[in-house]
């Protein structure tokens, strides 16, 4: 693999990860999550992960499968299903360490890591339980105002996972949905970022030169790319397909008593990605999922 041919297989990407790592996952709740790569982790022996995410089913599944040692989060939700039941089970069992953050503090921590700073100051968190629970410390402005602020520590990531509409083999990526969330900051906060994509092209400048503004992060931050159509399922991937609320509901139903993940995994992870997608009607059915209405 030359430095400018970043194509990898899903197994090669997971091979770049190791147990105990701090792993960032892009997307937001049930929206544009790199679920195919998450499923690849669920098929692996990786464990003791610190997961940093605006959480949806990615977090629920990794918690349910016992892959998570620590979770850094502001929420875990499936939007139309507000409470993620597998995450709730894991929390109520007391099985995982947590660092709970405000949504804005969270991206501030990613930015601190991206800028290679130890922290960034913010008022957010003052007057709440977050600082004490999270061990967040204060910092005093050195200027005449002397204001006391929370020092949001850098959320440095060993690796990050994203799902993109398009990528080329050098690691140029394009996101076409209405919102890119904080994916660029996950990438810049991570030592290595791996991207699954709906469509992999040899060269973005030949395939999609007119849409370079959809390139949200520079290729120097991308270490590996892999084409995985349907790779966000069951989360949404605008404009290609919406979330699969029927699948998410079935996934949530499996969390009800006795709530055995081993019984849910064959359907919601599967032995391979092709087997998984086939279980939900294949790409034809995925592409037919309408975009969510808010």
């Amino acid at each position: 693999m030359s430095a400018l041919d970043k194509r990898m297989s899903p197994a090669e990407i997971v091979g770049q990860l190791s147990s105990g790592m701090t792993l960032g996952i892009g997307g937001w709740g049930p929206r544009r999550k790199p679920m195919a790569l998450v499923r690849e982790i669920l098929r692996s022996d990786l464990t003791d992960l610190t997961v940093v995410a605006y959480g949806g089913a990615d977090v629920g599944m990794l918690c349910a499968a016992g892959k998570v040692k620590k979770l850094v989060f502001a929420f875990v939700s499936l939007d139309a299903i507000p409470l993620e039941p597998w995450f709730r089970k894991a929390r109520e069992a007391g099985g995982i360490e947590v660092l709970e953050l405000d949504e804005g503090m969270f991206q501030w921590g990613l930015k601190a890591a991206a800028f290679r700073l130890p922290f960034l100051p913010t008022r957010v968190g003052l007057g709440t339980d977050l600082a004490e629970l999270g061990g967040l410390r204060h910092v005093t402005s050195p200027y005449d105002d002397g204001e006391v602020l929370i020092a949001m520590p850098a959320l440095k990531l060993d690796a990050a996972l994203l799902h993109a509409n398009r990528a080329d083999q050098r690691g140029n990526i394009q996101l076409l949905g209405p919102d890119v969330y904080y994916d660029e900051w996950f990438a810049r906060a991570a030592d290595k970022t791996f991207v699954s994509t709906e469509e992999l092209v040899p060269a973005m400048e030949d395939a999609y030169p007119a849409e370079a503004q959809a390139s949200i992060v520079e290729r120097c931050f991308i270490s590996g790319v892999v084409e995985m159509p349907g790779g966000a399922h069951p989360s949404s991937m605008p404009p290609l397909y919406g979330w699969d609320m029927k699948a998410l509901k079935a996934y949530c139903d499996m969390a009800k008593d006795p709530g055995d993940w081993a019984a849910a995994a064959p359907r919601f992870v599967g032995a391979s990605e092709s087997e998984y997608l086939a279980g939900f009607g294949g790409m034809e059915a995925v592409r037919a999922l309408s975009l969510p209405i808010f």
Partner: protein
Amino acid sequence: MSDVSTNTATLAELCIAACAEAFRGNGEVVATGVGPVPRLAAGLAKLTHTPELMMTDGEAYLVEQPVPLGPRSYDARKTAGHLPFSRFFDAAVWSGRRHAMVTPTQIDRFGQINLSYMGGTHAQPRTQMLGVRGFPGNTICHPNSFFFPAHSPRIFVAGEVDMVSGVGYNPARRVAGGNYSDVDLRRIVTNLCVMDFGGPDHAVRVISLHPGVTFAEVQEATGFALIDAVTGETALPDAAALAVIAGLDPHNVRATVIKDNPPARNAS
């Protein structure tokens, strides 16, 4: 829904109108209503008394015509601007250019709110909920109001909320030297009354009672002492307001918000 005379307003519609009052005269700020009643209230405010308000389609775009609730065509909304989550903290929250109306799981006498967990400990909650989401940032950066469809002591708790997810007016929680000047809790609207934080040291006051409700009933349903500052009955929405509400809620989602969808004024 053809009859829009004031006598037929439901309690939910009265609450929407009362919530809309929280946004009156706010100017060019993003009005965010989370949940059917707050969202309809923001839309009602924008389409009637406060057209300067900004709002999103609930996803990523700014719209000048509030987006109706429930199923509709994805492309039915007309986009005037872009305000994705990727810009939300820079542009709306941390800049103070927003007023959010939300429904926490608990609220206490200081206006501290909880959306994270109830019971047990943070390490092992008895009931895990959403997580703090954006409440810590919202409450220290911009105005906030609240709507509760079922006023009870389980929501309006005695003592403090189980986890302080949003900052209130509790002096014991304030680190010396911190800047709390933007903490601005405006209104609480419930199925019983309208309240504000206008008492001594921002104590919660009841400022209007919905038709047929007494102050004693509100106090009974609240886990902490309230101040009686009632100036009258909460205003019923007029026919024009009811028509706007019906237009923004063509599937009548508002009928599902308050148990049994009672009328605002009982016929008996």
